[in-house]
C-alpha cells in the first residue's frame, strides 16, 4: 500500500504533534491573560539561549535518555515497563553505597563503581516483576508500578533508620566525599577549549547516557539477543516456533531495562546532589515512557525526545521564575506535549497517511 516514507513518520508526525501541543498551550496561556509569545520566548531563551540554560536542559535530558532507553528496550520485547521510577530509586541506593563504601582516590574509579552498582540495583529491582511475568503471567504493568511504591518505602526506611548520619534531621545520606564528585560540562568542555557556563548540573553522565544509546542500538539491531527480543516483541507465537524461549527473553529484556533506569541515578545522585535524597527521581521514570513513545523506541529518537523534555523542564522553571504563570500551568504544558506526542500521535498520523495516499 502507498505508505508514508519513514522520515515523515519519524520526523513530521512528532513535529506536527508538538506544534499542536504548543498551539493549545498558547491558547491556555492566553486564557489566563498572559502573553503566549512572550512565554515561549522566555522558555526558549531560558533553556536554550545560553550555555547556562543548556547546562540544565542537558542535565534533565540525561535523566530522560536513561529512563527513555529503559522503556524502549522493554517495548522491543513487547513489555511495558512502567517501573523506571522504582528502578531508578534503587539505582540511587547503588550509587550511594558505591560512593560511601570506599575512600575512592579518583572520581573515575568511583564512577566505574557507581555505574556498575546502580545498574545492578536497577536490574535487580526489575528482576522480580520480570520473573513473575515470565513464570506466572502476572502482568508486568501492575507489578512494576507496585514495585515503584515498594522502592519508595524501602528507601524511606533505609534513609530514616539506617543510612542517615548520626544527629542529622534530614532523611538523606551523608554527603559523598569530594573525590567522588563528577566533572561537569564546564570542566569537560573547557578541557578541549569550548567555553561552557559554570555551576550547571550537566555532567559527565551525559556521555555515559550517549554511550548507553550506542550500546542499546548495537544490542537491539546487531546481536542475536536483540534479534530474539524484537522477534519475541512482535509475535510470541512465532518466537516459540523459532526456538526462542519466552522466559529467557522476558528476563533479559527486563534486566537490561532495569539497569538502564538504574543508571539514571549516576546523573542525579552522584552528578548533582552528591548525596542520596528521598525523591531524587522526581518522575523521570514516567517521563521515560513519553520519551520512548515519541522517540519510536530508537536510541536516536530517544535522544531528541529527551532533549525536548529537558527543554520543557528547564523552560518551565524559567517561566515560573519570570512570569506570573503559575507553576501548575507548566505541568499542563508538559502534559499536553505528552498527550499529543505520545498518546494521540495517531491522530496526526492517520490524516497525514491519507494525504500521502492521495498523491
Amino acid at each position: 500500500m502507498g505508505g508514508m516514507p519513514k522520515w515523515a513518520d519519524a520526523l513530521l508526525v512528532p513535529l506536527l504533534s508538538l506544534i499542536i501541543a504548543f498551539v493549545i498551550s498558547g491558547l491556555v496561556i492566553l486564557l489566563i491573560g498572559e502573553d503566549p509569545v512572550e512565554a515561549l520566548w522566555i522558555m526558549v531563551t531560558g533553556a536554550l539561549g545560553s550555555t547556562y540554560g543548556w547546562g540544565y536542559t542537558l542535565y534533565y535530558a540525561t535523566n530522560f535518555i536513561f529512563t527513555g532507553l529503559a522503556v524502549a528496550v522493554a517495548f522491543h520485547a513487547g513489555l511495558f515497563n512502567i517501573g523506571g521510577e522504582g528502578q531508578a530509586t534503587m539505582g540511587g541506593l547503588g550509587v550511594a553505597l558505591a560512593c560511601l563504601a570506599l575512600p575512592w582516590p579518583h572520581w573515575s574509579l568511583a564512577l566505574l563503581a557507581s555505574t556498575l552498582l546502580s545498574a545492578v540495583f536497577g536490574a535487580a529491582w526489575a528482576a522480580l516483576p520480570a520473573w513473575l511475568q515470565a513464570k506466572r503471567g502476572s502482568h508486568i504493568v501492575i507489578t512494576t508500578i507496585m514495585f515503584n511504591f515498594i522502592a519508595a518505602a524501602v528507601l524511606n526506611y533505609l534513609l530514616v533508620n539506617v543510612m542517615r548520619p548520626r544527629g542529622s534531621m534530614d532523611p538523606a545520606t551523608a554527603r559523598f566525599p569530594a573525590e567522588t564528585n563528577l566533572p561537569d560540562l564546564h570542566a569537560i568542555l573547557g578541557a578541549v577549549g569550548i567555553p561552557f557556563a559554570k555551576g550547571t548540573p550537566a555532567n559527565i553522565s551525559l556521555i555515559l547516557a550517549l554511550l548507553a544509546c550506542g550500546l542499546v542500538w548495537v544490542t537491539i539491531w546487531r546481536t542475536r539477543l536483540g534479534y530474539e527480543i524484537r522477534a519475541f516483541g512482535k509475535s510470541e507465537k512465532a518466537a516459540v516456533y523459532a526456538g526462542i524461549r519466552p522466559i529467557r527473553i522476558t528476563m533479559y529484556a527486563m534486566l537490561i531495562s532495569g539497569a538502564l533506569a538504574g543508571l539514571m541515578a549516576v546523573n542525579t545522585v552522584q552528578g548533582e546532589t552528591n548525596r542520596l535524597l528521598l525523591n531524587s527521581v522526581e518522575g523521570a521514570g514516567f517521563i521515560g515512557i513519553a520519551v520512548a513513545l515519541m522517540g519510536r523506541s530508537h536510541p536516536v529518537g530517544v535522544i531528541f525526545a529527551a532533549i525536548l523534555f529537558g527543554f520543557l523542564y528547564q523552560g518551565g522553571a524559567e517561566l515560573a521564575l519570570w512570569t506570573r504563570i503559575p507553576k501548575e500551568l507548566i505541568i499542563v504544558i508538559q502534559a499536553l506535549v505528552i498527550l499529543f506526542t505520545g498518546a494521540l500521535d495517531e491522530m496526526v498520523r492517520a490524516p497525514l497517511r491519507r494525504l500521502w495516499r492521495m498523491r
Partner: protein
Amino acid sequence: MGRQDPAAPFAIELRGISKAFGPVQANKDISIQVARGSIHGIIGENGAGKSTLMSILYGFYKADSGEIVINGHPTTIPDSQSAIRAGIGMVFQHFKLVQNFTVLENIILGVEEGRLLAPSLSKARKVLAELAREYELEVEPDALIEDLSVGHLQRVEILKALYRQADILILDEPTGVLTPAEADHLFRILRGLKEQGKTIILITHKLREIMEITDTVSVMRRGEMTATLPTAGTSPEQLAELMVGRKVLLRVEKAPASPGRIVLEIDDLRVRDPQGVERLKGVNLTLRAGEILGIAGVAGNGQSELLEVLGGISQATGRVKINGQEIDLTGKHSDGRSRRAQGIAHVPEDRQTRGLIMDFAAWENMAFGYHHAPAYQKNAALMDNAAIRADCAAKMERFDVRPQVPALAARNFSGGNQQKLVVAREIERNPDLLLIGQPTRGVDIGAVEFIHKQILALRDAGKAVLLVSVELDEILSRSDRIAVMFDGRIMGERLPGATDERELGLLMAGIGEEAA
C-alpha cells in the same frame, strides 16, 4: 430495485479502471462487463490485482482513472455505504461479524431503524425466514455467532448483503475455509440466487470452482485483465496458462518413491491441551528417508498438535526417535532450536502467526529460527547482517520470490510469496525431516506448482517429508503413503494408488478400522 434500466444488459461495467500504489500498478486499464443474472468468475494469482479491483468497486479505494457503470448509470463509489446503496454486497474472505451477537443482531448491525431494536429485529426475522425459504439459506436467527460453523458464518454474511437489498453479490475466495460438502451447498445457494436474477461475482484462484459454477470468467495477471471467456468454451489448462503466463503442469509428474532407512519413529505420542483435553491419543507412525507421508484429516483432529510436538512448539508424552535417536519431548531440549539442530525443519501451518514475523524484513525472516547458524555471525557478539541479506537474496532468486527485495517487510509480500520465503528458508537447510503443514493454503497456482516441485526434489534427495493438509486432492496426489487422523488417533494407512476420496473420507469421519 427501481434503478434498473432494462436497456442496459450489464449489471456492472468497468471502463478503463487504473490504480497505482506508489510505483506498483495494481490495476492497469481494466474493462469488464458483467451481465445481469450471471455468475462471473474472476481468477488470477495472488497479487494479480483482484482484491484491489473489488475494493475499488466496494469503495475502499478510489481508482486513479476509469469509470464504474452500474445498471447503465455511471456511478461514483467513494465509500462502502454508497456501494451498498448502489446494490452491491460483499462477502469477505475474513468474515466481519460480531462474535458475541446473535445472527439477527449481526444482520441489522448498521441498518437499525430507530432507537429501539425490537422493531428492526422482528422485521429482520421475517425477511430472514423468506430468504431462507427462497435460497436454502437456513440459519438459526437467535444463535450466537461464536457457536456457528464456518459454513454458517458465510451464510450469515450472504444474508447480511441480501438484507441490504444487494442485487450484485461479490464473493472473495468463498470456499477457502469450507469443507467440500459446505462448498457444494454454497454453490447451490449461488445458483438459486442467480435464478432469482441476482448477479454474482466470484473471486477465486481455484480453477475447479470456476469451471463448475461460472457462466463467464475473466482472468487477471499482474494488474491486467488478460482475457474474458465464456466458461463453457475454455478449459482449466487454458485458464491456468492465462493466469500464469506460461504452460502450467496441473499435476507434477512424480517418480515412485524408493524409501530407505527409518528417519522418524513415533510411539504412543500423547498431548494434552492447557484445558486438560487429550488432543493426541497415542499416535504411532514411522517415516522413511525418500518418502512423503501425507496426513489426511478434517482440521482439528490432532494434525496441528502432531506438527507442533515434532517442531518443538509444544510438549508431549511418548517416544519419538529421529535417525534412531530419541528426542526430548518435555525438557530443556524440547524447543524449536533443538529440533532444528536434530535435522528437523518445519513449515508451519500458519505462516503469518508462526512462520514469519510480519513486520520483519524478508532478510530478517530468512534467518528466523536459524539465527544461531555460524554462517550468520560476524563474531562471538554480533550477527552478520550483510551475510544474511546476501543469503536471502540468493534464496529469493532460487525460489523466484517476488518482488526480489530482501529489505521489504514480510507483510508486503503476497500469500504465495510469503510461503515461498518460509519454504525456501526451511528446505535450503537440507533437513533430514521436513514437517510441512498446509503448504499451499492461500497460495496461487504458479507457486503451488513450484512448492510441490521443491518438496518432491527434497524427497528424491533422500529426505523424509511429513505433509499435513486438509486438501484431500493435495494428499492424494503428492503423498507416497497416506495416514488418516481422526480424534487424535491414526485411523489407518493407505497407499494413494490403492484408495480413493470416498474411502479416505470415511476414515476422516472416524468410520473404519480402529487405530493400529
